[in-house]
């Protein structure tokens, strides 16, 4: 009998809480981020229920304002930013490089506890009253808000520290722990996207931390950095905030793009249509993405020249995403396509991301943004990227790697049903929001003029469908953990490095070192093991 897998290598609660095994830390992040998305989702359901009718309805405006703030804070900082890196990156980045662990296993564990601490601070702030500033904390409203802004801002700061720790660890690991034969130009694309993400995390997150701390100081001590009544400047905050928060969009979407770039070759049984395009476009997004933040300020009174420059930079960054879509689709050409649940999610991703991305070009077009800015059009646009993109890719990743992580299969038929429901429910929720934005409905609206009601009702029905589909997915996955069919080492016939070990993997990842001469996408060469 070979050595026991990582789940059974040690027993007892201490062996989990004090583990430095990247795979176990990944599972702990999996649990934590799933709880976060359920909380954020519950907020979303309450918000959508409130919006069924235009008047005051089931909650006071201030309650609604607190709920949309908490929805944004929880979803962005506790789910979207950490989820794919901390769960799947943690688990698979070392395996894809042929390493036994991340470069700094203890920092990895610490990053989990920092995340938990940040999440607890934020939750405490919520129970204590919750901020009503929106997740954007715009000053000077955030500095004079009657609600408790400081603990939530501090929570966001601490969550950012966790994100930086993960990023540093990934960068160091990619540089230092590549197994001999795994070169920059042959390592899996998922690693490239995590590397690009980590660069953004390390460079941009400190600016966010600084900005929210200044807001917290303004709120608590009336320091006045961003408050014109005390001599400060509110537009300064907008620049600082978006310097992080626009690149943060790429923190949220790049790992999702990496997931797609892994799933497509496996289920099309095909080499990447253009490895270099996928790899370098990730870096392109990371770097050019730093120069586009001002497109959030087209109506904030920035200079016309700046609007022009931020506009054209936004067009450039979009090209990298377009190249990725082109390459994913091209990879299907002359492949052998097996339409399993992970690939269904990838198709959902490609359509929704393409639409969401193109509407991103639309809102980066300066004159059009004037009409759409801060309306539901923008809400619909970024939910197409965040849910249609990141969440869909996350679900694809869950189904794709579930057998490897837990050694069990998920039920394929239920997987297909839930993927279809997620896609349908998503569109029903957010397509009407594009139309609401066109008609002029502003975001963050506790009540709205009656002419917007019909589309709001349709959107709420869509949200319930989406919520039900996600609960269905969670339920069958939990059941599969215990009852699922035992998974073989490589159920999808993938050439990916992470599949060249038993499911679940042993504590040190590989029983014997894999041979990187057969690349992760080398479907044009026979696999000697398959032949055997």
């Amino acid at each position: 009998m070979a050595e026991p897998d990582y789940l059974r290598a040690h027993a007892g609660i201490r062996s989990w809480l004090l583990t430095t095994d990247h795979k176990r830390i990944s599972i702990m992040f999996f649990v934590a981020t799933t709880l976060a998305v359920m909380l954020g989702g519950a907020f979303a359901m309450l918000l959508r229920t409130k919006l069924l009718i235009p008047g005051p309805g089931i909650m006071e405006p201030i309650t609604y304002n607190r709920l949309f703030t908490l929805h944004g804070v929880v979803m962005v900082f506790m789910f979207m930013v950490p989820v794919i890196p901390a769960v799947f990156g943690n688990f698979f980045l070392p395996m894809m490089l042929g390493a036994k662990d991340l470069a700094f296993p203890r920092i990895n564990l610490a990053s989990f506890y920092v995340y938990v601490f940040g999440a607890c601070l934020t939750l405490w702030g919520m129970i204590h009253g919750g901020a009503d500033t929106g997740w954007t904390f715009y000053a000077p409203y955030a500095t004079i808000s009657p609600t408790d802004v400081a603990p939530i801002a501090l929570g966001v700061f601490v969550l950012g520290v966790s994100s930086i720790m993960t990023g540093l660890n990934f960068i160091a690991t990619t540089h230092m722990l590549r197994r001999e034969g795994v070169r920059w130009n042959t390592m899996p694309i998922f690693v490239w996207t995590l590397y690009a993400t980590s660069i953004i995390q390390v460079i941009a997150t400190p600016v966010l931390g600084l900005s929210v701390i200044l807001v917290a100081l303004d709120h608590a001590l009336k320091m006045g950095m961003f408050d014109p009544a005390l001599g400060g400047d509110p537009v300064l905050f907008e620049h600082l905030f978006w310097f992080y928060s626009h690149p943060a969009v790429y923190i949220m979407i790049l790992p999702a793009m990496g997931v797609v770039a892994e799933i497509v070759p496996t289920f099309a049984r095909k080499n990447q249509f253009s490895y270099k395009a996928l790899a370098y476009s990730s870096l392109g997004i990371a770097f050019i993405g730093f120069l586009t933040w001002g497109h959030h300020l087209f109506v904030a009174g920035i200079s016309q020249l700046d609007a022009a420059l931020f506009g054209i930079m936004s067009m450039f960054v979009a090209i990298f995403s377009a190249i990725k879509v082109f390459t994913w689709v091209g990879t299907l050409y002359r492949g052998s396509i097996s339409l399993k649940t992970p690939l269904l999610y990838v198709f959902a991703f490609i359509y929704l991301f393409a639409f969401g991305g193109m509407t991103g070009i639309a809102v980066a077009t300066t004159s059009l943004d004037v009409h759409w800015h801060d309306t539901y059009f923008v809400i619909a646009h970024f939910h197409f990227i965040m849910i249609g993109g990141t969440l869909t890719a996350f679900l694809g990743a869950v189904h794709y790697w579930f057998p490897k992580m837990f050694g069990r299969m998920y039920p394929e038929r239920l997987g297909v049903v839930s993927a279809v429901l997620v896609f349908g429910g998503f569109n029903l929720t957010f397509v009407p929001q594009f139309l609401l934005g066109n008609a002029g409905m502003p975001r963050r609206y506790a009540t709205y003029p009656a002419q917007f009601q019909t589309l709001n009702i349709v959107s709420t029905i869509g949200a319930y469908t989406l919520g039900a589909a996600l609960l269905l997915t969670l339920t069958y996955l939990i059941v599969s953990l215990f009852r699922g069919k035992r998974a073989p080492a490589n159920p999808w016939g993938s050439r990916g490095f992470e599949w060249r070990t038993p499911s679940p993997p042993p504590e040190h990842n590989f029983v014997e070192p894999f041979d990187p001469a057969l690349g992760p996408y080398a479907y044009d060469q026979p696999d000697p093991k398959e032949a055997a």
Partner: protein
Amino acid sequence: MNELLRHLLNLPPQASSVARGIDTLHYTVIGATFAGVALVAAITLYFIIKFRRAGAAPGTTPRVVAPLWLELGVAGGLLTLFCAWWVVGFAQYRELETPPANAIPIYVTAKQWMWKFEYPGGPASSETLVVPVGQPVKLIMTSRDVIHSFYVPAFRIKQDVVPGHVVTTWFEAIAPGSYQVLCTQYCGTRHSFMRAQVIALAPEDFARWLEAARGPLPLPGAKGEGQGLAERGREVAAKHGCLRCHSIDGTPFIGPTWAHSFGTQRALAGGGSVLVDEAYLTESMMDPNAKIAAGFQAVMPSYQGLLDPEETAALLEFIRSLRDVEPVRPAPPPTGPITLPGGSRG
């Protein structure tokens, strides 16, 4: 064609001189979006059908790599398209951001949660901006408290109104009518109630309106001949939006009700109480956060400089006149911090 697309996309009427041009770019960009996604969908569906796996997985598949010319072609083609939109969009943006020299100036003050419009030489009004059709109007705007955003969907214009900054925007209405003004920058509890309207009048009607509205300035006390000071106070309360937060029949609302409040003792947040008299009421108008009534949020803006002495006196008289009104409901219980999830009343 324009009307068909406008309805399909659920866009409001095109009521300003720039709206039609912006919508034309809108149709182009959204049309290309649909076309692009449809193309991607068609190609993937074709590949799925053509290359679907039947039976066992093949040992190998042919290696296909994108030729460089194709990659560069796709990237270059799309970049050209995006840059074309950028050029047209930026030209329109410049037009939106540059008021014509002959525009009529109107001063706009935003504050939580109302809009105030002032014409040089008078008059001033809140909630309603009256403008002439066919003539550019330049709005010179600032905010007294937090960032607001002046948005008229039918005009396709929007401008953040930033405290500490003076910003401008402009529009030219092309048809008489009433158009909704919405605040699009989240500005606090009553953000979604911060609405106003633009009334566009034919030039001759506008001239008549302006003349009538300017009129001879009334002497203090002379306004509303035969009208009691309390009645005048009711008008002041409506004009300044007091009644958006304070009820006059005892209904619990954002601020304490005015019914049966004058002459009573009011419990304060943080303990203690105060007699509701002229001194306390005046202080509450000018420095609302000095003493917060128990159970209410510190959300009221200061009216220092907004209410003139005559108006303040009228308001006090109005509130005094409500001292014997029996509240329809008892005073609201303290709301306290909300508990989540579920909301305070959800």
